[in-house]
C-alpha cells in the first residue's frame, strides 16, 4: 500500500498536538490533548486516534517533535521543535521569510527563517520566566483563566512587576493583591512582564522581517498586540499557530515520504 497520510506529533510539556496531512500538504486532521504525566501514554493515545481515523501503519509516515519526541516509539523520525516550528509557521503563514516566536509551556523559542531555512535561533534558559508557565501561574494566583488574564490586561496599566523569576513574581503579585491593586492593572503587569522578557531576547536577533507567533498563546489577541508594540513591528498570529510544531513535523514526514 502506498503512503497517503503524513502525521506530525508535537509532544509539548503541557499539551500535545497532532496534525495529519495528505500528500499535497493539506491539513486533514488536528488533534489536541494534554500531555499529562507520561508522554509515552500520550503517544499511545495519539496512536489510537490515528488508528481511529483508519490510518494504517503502512499508509503513514510519522515524525515526532517537541520535548517528548523520544517517547513516540512508532515515529519514523524525530525532528527538533526548532525546525518543526519554522517549517510549520512558513506553511501556515504562507511565507518563507519570517521570525517565529513560540511561547511554549516550558520554554520560549525565537527562530529566524530565511528562504525557508532556519538561519538563527534562541531558546530561553532553564527557568520558566518568559514562558507560558509564567502566565499560567499568574492566572492561577489571580483566579482567572488565561484568556481572561489577557483580556483584563487590555484594560489595565500603570503597574509593573520587577522580578523576572516566576517564584518571586508570584509573591509580588500576591503583594499587589494584598494592597488592593485593581486586577486589570495586575494582569497588565503580568502580560507586560512576559512581553518585555521575550523582547529582550529578541534584541539579540535580527528582526527586520515579519514576526509571527506560534504555540498555545497565539490566540491571545492582546498579548500579540503588546508584543508588536514593544518589538515595534507587526506580529501576526492565527488559530492554526498552535499547531505549527505539529504541522512542521507533518511536513517533515512528507519530506521523508518523498526521499
Amino acid at each position: 500500500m502506498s503512503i497517503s497520510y503524513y502525521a506530525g506529533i508535537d509532544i509539548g510539556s503541557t499539551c500535545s498536538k497532532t496534525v495529519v496531512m495528505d500528500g499535497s500538504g493539506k491539513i486533514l486532521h488536528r488533534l489536541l490533548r494534554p500531555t499529562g504525566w507520561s508522554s509515552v501514554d500520550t503517544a499511545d493515545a495519539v496512536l489510537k486516534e490515528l488508528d481511529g481515523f483508519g490510518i494504517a501503519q503502512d499508509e503513514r509516515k510519522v515524525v515526532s517533535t517537541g520535548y517528548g519526541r523520544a517517547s513516540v516509539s512508532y515515529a519514523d523520525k524525530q525532528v527538533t521543535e526548532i525546525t518543526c516550528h519554522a517549517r510549520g509557521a512558513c506553511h501556515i503563514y504562507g511565507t518563507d521569510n519570517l521570525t517565529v516566536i513560540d511561547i511554549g509551556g516550558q520554554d520560549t523559542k525565537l527562530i529566524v527563517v530565511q528562504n525557508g531555512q532556519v538561519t538563527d535561533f534562541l531558546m530561553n534558559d532553564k527557568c520558566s520566566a518568559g514562558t507560558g508557565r509564567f502566565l499560567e501561574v499568574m492566572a492561577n494566583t489571580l483566579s482567572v483563566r488565561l484568556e481572561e488574564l489577557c483580556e483584563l490586561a487590555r484594560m489595565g496599566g500603570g503597574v509593573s512587576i520587577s522580578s523576572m523569576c516566576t517564584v518571586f513574581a508570584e509573591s509580588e503579585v500576591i503583594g499587589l493583591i494584598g494592597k488592593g491593586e485593581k486586577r486589570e492593572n495586575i494582569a497588565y503587569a503580568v502580560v507586560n512582564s512576559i512581553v518585555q522578557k521575550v523582547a529582550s531576547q529578541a534584541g539579540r536577533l535580527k528582526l527586520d522581517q515579519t514576526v509571527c507567533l506560534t504555540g498555545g498563546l497565539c490566540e491571545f489577541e492582546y498579548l500579540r498586540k503588546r508584543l508588536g508594540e514593544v518589538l515595534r513591528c507587526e506580529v501576526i498570529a492565527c488559530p492554526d499557530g498552535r499547531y505549527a510544531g505539529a504541522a512542521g513535523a507533518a511536513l517533515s514526514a512528507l519530506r521523508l515520504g518523498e526521499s
Partner: protein
Amino acid sequence: MADYRQMWSDLGMDMENHDNLCQVLPTAVGDVFLSQENRPKAMDFWDLVISEVHGIRPAELIEEQKKGRKVFGTFCVYVPDEVIIAANGIVTGLCGGSQFWVPDGEKVLPKSTCPLVKASVGARLGRTCPFFRIADMYVGETTCDGKKKAYEILGEDVPMYIMDVPQMKREKDILKWKDEIAEFAKKVEEFTGNTITPEKLGEAIHLINEKRKALQRVYDCRKSKTLPISGRDALLMTQISFFDDPARCAQMCNRLADELEQRIKDGVSVVSAGTKRIMVTGTPLAVPNWKLHNIIETSGAAVVCEEMCTGTRYFENLVDESQTTLDGQFMALSERYMKTNCACFTPNTGRIDDLLRLAKEYQVDGVIDCSLKFCCLYDTEKYSVSRALKEAGIPVLSLETDYEDADAGQLRTRIGAFIEMLS
C-alpha cells in the same frame, strides 16, 4: 584491574567517597567511548589509561617520587612545562572535570564560581583524586578571578606558587612573562635541588615540541573529509596528554597518527559521507567532561576540532629551539606561550583569527561556542566570536553549561536544531 587501594589509602584519600567515583566512571567510559563503532585500534592505549585513570599514572608518579623527583600540578596552559622538566621535575594537569567534586568545592567557594574551579578545589579538599594528593607543589597563575582567589584557599593546604600572567600582549608584556618564567625557573631549581642548564632546558624544549607536533599530526588527520577518528576519541587523547609522560605521549600520538593517515589513504571514515563537521570552542573540557562531544556526536554530527585549551591552544605554535642561553630560551618560551589566545587577555582578537583560520583548515560546517557557567570571560567573548563567524558565513551556536546532567535534554534540542539547520 590492578588493586590500587593500598596506594590510595597511603595517599590519605577519602576511600569511601572515592569508591563512589570509581563506580560511575566505567559506565561513563562504556557509554561515551566503547559504544562507538569502527574506532582506531591505537585508541587501546587511551582506553586502558582512562579505565585505570586513578591507578596507572599515579603509581608511576609515586615511583618517580621515590627516586627523588618532584611532581608539579598545573591548572593552565600558560605554565611552561619545559622549565619543570629541565629540572628533572614532572608535570601533571590538575583541572577537575566532574560534577562529583563540585559539592566539596562549594563548601568553601561561592556557588557562582565556575564548575572547573569548584571541582578542582573540591578534588583537593575532598581528598578524592590521587593526582591532587601526589603533586608536591601546585603552580597557579593570575588568569581569571575565580582561579586567583581559589589558589589562596588551596595554598593553605599545599605548597603553591603563583605565576603572574600578563593581561595584555604588548611587547613589554612579553618581556614581563619572560621575567616571570625566569623567576619560576629559580623556584623550580630551589624546590627540586636541580640546576637548570641551557642544555637541559634545550632538551626539554625539544621534548615538548615533539609532543606538540605529535598532537598536531593527529589533529591534521581530522582535517580530512574522510574523518578517521571521532571527536570523543581525539578529545580523550588531548585530555590524557596533560597527565602523561611527554615522551610516551608523543610516541602514542604518533602511533595513532600513523593509523589515521593509513585510514585516510584507505578511505576509512568513522562517519558517513555528508555528516556535518563541527568545531567546538570555548572553555576547557577537563577529564572526564565529555558531555558536549557526546551529545553532538550522538545527534548525528562529528566534532572535528577543538579551539580550546584542551585542544589546539595546547599544542599550536612551537618554541624556537635555536637558542643556546637561558636568557634566549626564556624569551623563546615567552614568545611561544604569549601566542596562546585566552579570554583572560584584552584584546583577544587573536582567538577570532584562529577560529576563522581553523574553520577553513578543518572544513567545518558550524561552530559551537560553549562556556562553563559563571565564566564571565568566555561568556562575554561569545558576542564578538559569533559576530565574526556569522560575518564570515559560518553558522554558530552559543551555549552555556556546567557539569550537571540536568540540562542534557535542553542541550540536545539546541544542538539537534543546530545540526538540522546546517543540513
